[in-house]
């Protein structure tokens, strides 16, 4: 800094973090290209977002800014694209905190003829390779924790995690309408402390767009990845039954209605083309959060060029 009168010092001092961020994103692209994935770009502005109870899409004219590129990318799977990835901006109304900005960057990737277990392995390989790229090697230090990245990472089911850390079953918390509170207060802070952790097999009530487990339909093949207590990614063995998906969407819509939230049009084209979707797995990973962990940043503000308050 040769100029001693920089007005926007918070921005100036983020230069190093933003350089590292660019390096991480370049490496992500290289990682997926080398694995035979096609990089795609789907529209940011869409007419019908996936109805989810607690994700509020930002209105843009009569359409919406996407909260995730999920639906368009799945239509590509249905049309014969086998391995695709995308790094894009997404918008979610009202999400702001030390780990949230309402406009953020997602990495999503999808692969046909795979399930969520394949994605766990792929997450390990990706993040190990990124840690090497930024020179942190076999472990990352985040929030004072030294998280070792060597495989295999911890894999713990939702039910097991609730029993171990909250001494209550996940089903019981759902019955009492306390699932989210217990998750945030008792479970999340303990996930991914010594090693990154995959918490998997969510109760069917929290299936979202995941398929139910054949051997145990009370849970869905969905996982979340945590590093140092921070949620980094959400993945599914994808639900490919259009009829079932329509029912899930209807339930989500009803929840939205009961919470007084706006109702989106039904994504009919997606549901129609879903009938041709092969068995697949897909994952959304928060790039800003991943950069936070790799650079040991306390808040998301440190790894983005501008926060909404700075505009």
């Amino acid at each position: 800094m040769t100029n001693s009168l920089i007005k926007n010092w918070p921005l100036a001092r983020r230069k190093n973090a933003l350089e590292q961020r660019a390096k991480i994103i370049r490496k992500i692209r290289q990682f997926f290209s080398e694995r035979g994935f096609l990089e795609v770009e789907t529209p940011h502005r869409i007419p019908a977002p996936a109805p989810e109870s607690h994700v509020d899409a930002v209105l843009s004219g009569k359409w919406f800014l996407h909260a995730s590129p999920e639906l368009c990318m799945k239509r590509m799977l249905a049309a014969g694209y086998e391995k695709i990835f995308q790094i894009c901006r997404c918008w979610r109304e009202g999400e702001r905190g030390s780990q949230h900005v309402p406009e953020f960057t997602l990495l999503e990737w999808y692969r046909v003829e795979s399930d969520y277990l394949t994605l766990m392995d792929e997450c390990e390989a990706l993040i190990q390779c990124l840690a090497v790229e930024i020179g942190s090697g076999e472990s990352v230090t985040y929030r004072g924790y030294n998280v070792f990245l060597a495989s295999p990472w911890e894999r713990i089911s939702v039910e097991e995690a609730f029993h171990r850390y909250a001494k209550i079953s996940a089903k019981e918390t759902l019955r009492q309408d306390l699932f989210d509170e217990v998750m945030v207060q008792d479970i999340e802070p303990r996930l991914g402390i010594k090693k990154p952790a995959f918490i998997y097999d969510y109760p069917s009530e929290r299936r979202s767009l995941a398929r139910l487990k054949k051997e145990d339909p009370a849970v869905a093949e969905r996982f979340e990845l945590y590093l140092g207590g921070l949620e980094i990614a959400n993945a599914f063995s994808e639900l490919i039954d259009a009829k079932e998906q329509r029912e899930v969407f209807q339930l989500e819509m009803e929840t939205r209605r009961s919470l007084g939230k706006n109702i989106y049009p039904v994504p009919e084209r997606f549901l129609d083309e879903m009938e041709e979707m092969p068995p697949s797995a897909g994952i959304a990973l928060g790039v800003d959060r991943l950069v936070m962990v790799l650079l040991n940043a306390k808040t998301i503000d440190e790894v983005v060029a501008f926060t909404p308050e700075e505009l």
Partner: protein
Amino acid sequence: MYTASDLRKGLKVTIDNEPYIVTAFEFSKPGKGQALYRTKLKNMITGSTIDRTYREGDAFESASLEERVMQYLYKEGDHHYFMDNQTYEQTIINEDALGEAKYFLIDNLNVKVLMFREKAIGVELPNFVNLRVIKTEMWVKGDTSKADYKPATIETGYELRIPPFVQEGELITIDTRNGEYSTRVKE
């Protein structure tokens, strides 16, 4: 009336008919779950602190406190003296009740003193105050090796991080809402 999404550090709300101030705040949203607003709230009368987690739709009454504009005079031990700008009456506020505001009080500063049943229970500062750096590392002009913050102490004894180019003796603007450096004041 506030809803949970208005919660932030410094917000004053009424709980069980008593005024509380939010002293810590965290927005959480477990994967695909609902938004949760985790707070630490300090009772502005008793000083005791509670942890509460709120959901998106939860509503609050704002704390009904009378505000009086007063000038900060001086401090004696734990007592901070203020003078009402209209009546010239003096009011004492204890250091505990001031919380972090004690770091940003300088002589003659006008603040809003918060009254609950005729008792002064806290102050509301202007968003920005100018304070002088009394201790920090030297910076050599043109040194690009340390493009980060360095520790500094200001005249009230408060410690914070400032850009390397700010020198000892200079006046800086501090954002009292988060206690962070904002800009350097040209004198």
